[in-house]
């Protein structure tokens, strides 16, 4: 019997590690999406940010993050296990495997912000931001929901992190991009927006495919155990269907609104579906995943248009994808979730009334507010001491030369008249 138990732990560990590797690879996905959606003159800069934030997140989450998120403490934060000393795994798999999986999630939350603040944020400021969010902000939200904190105690559900990862990253990106202000030339004096086209749709497409692929680790891996395989299977199909429907609906809507099937928007739609289904993926039927993905597709296109109207310049749609659909995905548990599939109470459609929906709403509001206020404070401090935004000259010349002294495409003559 003992060997059987060991074998089970071994299989579970392998599953979680493979998932951790997939989630790590999402870092490449984020890098390619963001690089593709911005101008060539800032590509080296955004990739350096993507690269370094995973490095910063790894160390920040090792030193402080894990202890705050999963250490024993109070309802608000954990207090034990700094530098993993005396830290324990809350599940049956070994601590180090669990840590790596969680650290990859932490890196994903941190890297979302790079896109929203792209093409104008100082590199130094970004390094400091990425350490703070992974060592403090993300782990506190994580503790509330996954670490035994107050939200988990009142029955709030977020299976794989629509709120923990995506809402956190999305709200931080929104706060950051508002504080930075729009890129030079994004809005005319009469307030109408200009197109600042991304420089490589092929790179962005590759990035979306990598993210979709990585999401098969993000959601199914969050089971943290293989079991009889049925739960992993359910989550995997739900993840896939929501992404597919999100892509279709976003494409259809943008086609109807603006006359052409815009690939960049269709891809944002697939990502929106993935973000939205992340919270409910374990608790719903496939048809519900399709519905959730469809709504996500509508929401992402609407949010992109509304942000332009509000003069908020989010170059890659970080808030529409991760913020808006992080909220929607988390709330959708209260509508489509089922007690029979492991949820605390039935969702609205299954006769559970508004109880679960209310809890979800409270959790989203609390997490969103906390991230907005704390990240607002962090960005403000960075702005005071180092400065958040590069100079006008540097922005016009491009951050590749200004911040890093090198071009992304040496040997090519890339001319930018914006």
């Amino acid at each position, binding site marked *: 019997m003992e060997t059987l138990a060991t074998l089970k732990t071994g299989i579970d560990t392998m599953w979680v590690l493979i998932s951790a590797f997939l989630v790590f690879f999402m870092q490449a996905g984020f890098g390619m999406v963001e690089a593709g959606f911005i101008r060539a003159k800032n590509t080296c800069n955004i990739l350096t940010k993507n690269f370094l934030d995973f490095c910063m997140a790894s160390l920040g989450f090792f030193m402080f993050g894990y202890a705050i998120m999963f250490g024993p403490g109070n309802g608000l934060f954990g207090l034990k296990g700094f530098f993993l000393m005396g830290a324990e795994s809350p599940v049956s798999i070994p601590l180090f495997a669990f840590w790596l999986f969680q650290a990859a999630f932490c890196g994903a939350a941190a890297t979302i912000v790079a896109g929203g603040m792209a093409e104008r944020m100082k590199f130094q400021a970004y390094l400091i931001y990425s350490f703070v969010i992974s060592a403090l902000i993300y782990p506190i939200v994580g503790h509330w929901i996954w670490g035994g904190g107050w939200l988990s105690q009142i029955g709030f559900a977020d299976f794989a992190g629509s709120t923990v990862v995506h809402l956190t990253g999305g709200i931080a990106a929104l706060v950051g991009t508002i504080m930075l202000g729009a890129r*030079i*030339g994004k809005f005319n004096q009469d307030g109408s927006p200009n197109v600042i086209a991304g420089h490589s749709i092929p790179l962005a497409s590759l990035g979306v495919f990598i993210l979709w692929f990585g999401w098969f680790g993000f959601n199914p891996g969050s089971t943290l155990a293989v079991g009889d395989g049925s739960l992993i299977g359910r989550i995997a199909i739900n993840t896939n269907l929501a992404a597919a429907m999100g892509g279709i609906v976003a494409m259809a809507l943008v086609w109807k609104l603006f006359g052409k099937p815009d690939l960049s928007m269709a891809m944002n739609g697939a990502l929106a579906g993935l973000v939205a289904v992340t919270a409910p993926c374990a608790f719903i039927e496939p048809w519900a995943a399709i519905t959730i993905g469809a709504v996500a597709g509508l929401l992402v296109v609407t949010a992109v248009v509304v942000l332009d109207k509000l003069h908020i310049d989010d170059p890659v749609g970080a808030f529409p994808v991760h913020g808006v659909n992080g909220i929607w995905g988390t709330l959708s548990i209260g509508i489509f979730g089922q007690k029979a599939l492991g949820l605390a109470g039935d969702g609205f459609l299954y006769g559970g009334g508004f109880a679960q929906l209310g809890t979800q709403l409270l959790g989203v509001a609390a997490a969103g507010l906390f991230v907005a206020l704390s990240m607002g404070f962090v960005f403000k401090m960075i702005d005071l001491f180092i400065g958040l935004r590069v100079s006008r000259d540097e922005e*016009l*010349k491009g951050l590749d*030369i200004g911040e890093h*002294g*090198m*071009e992304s495409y*040496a040997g090519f*003559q890339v*001319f*930018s*008249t*914006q």
Partner: protein
Amino acid sequence: MKLIIAMIQPHKLTDVKKALFDAQVYKMTVTNALGCGQQKGYTETYRGVISDINLLKKIRLEIAVNDDYVEPTIKAIIKGAKTGSIGDGKIMVMDMVDCIRIRTGERGSKAIG
């Protein structure tokens, strides 16, 4: 008839175009160009090695105008391109011998339109 050639900063093209349109100058040819003037350029570093980049990216504008449009065009280019710092560019004006519209065979002022 004059041919006006202007070298401007790439990121000022939008402003210059707008100023030209406001001055009712709608016809132009735009080319990417490399060049250097008083600006010393900038340095790049690649894997620890420093290299000087002397030739900077510029935009070259060519506009053929009738005589009464020369001053408005020059003013518009300056209005759009001037920042007051080194590197704003130059405007060169030269006599143009003739101009022919290929489609109709019109010549001279008529061809400029």
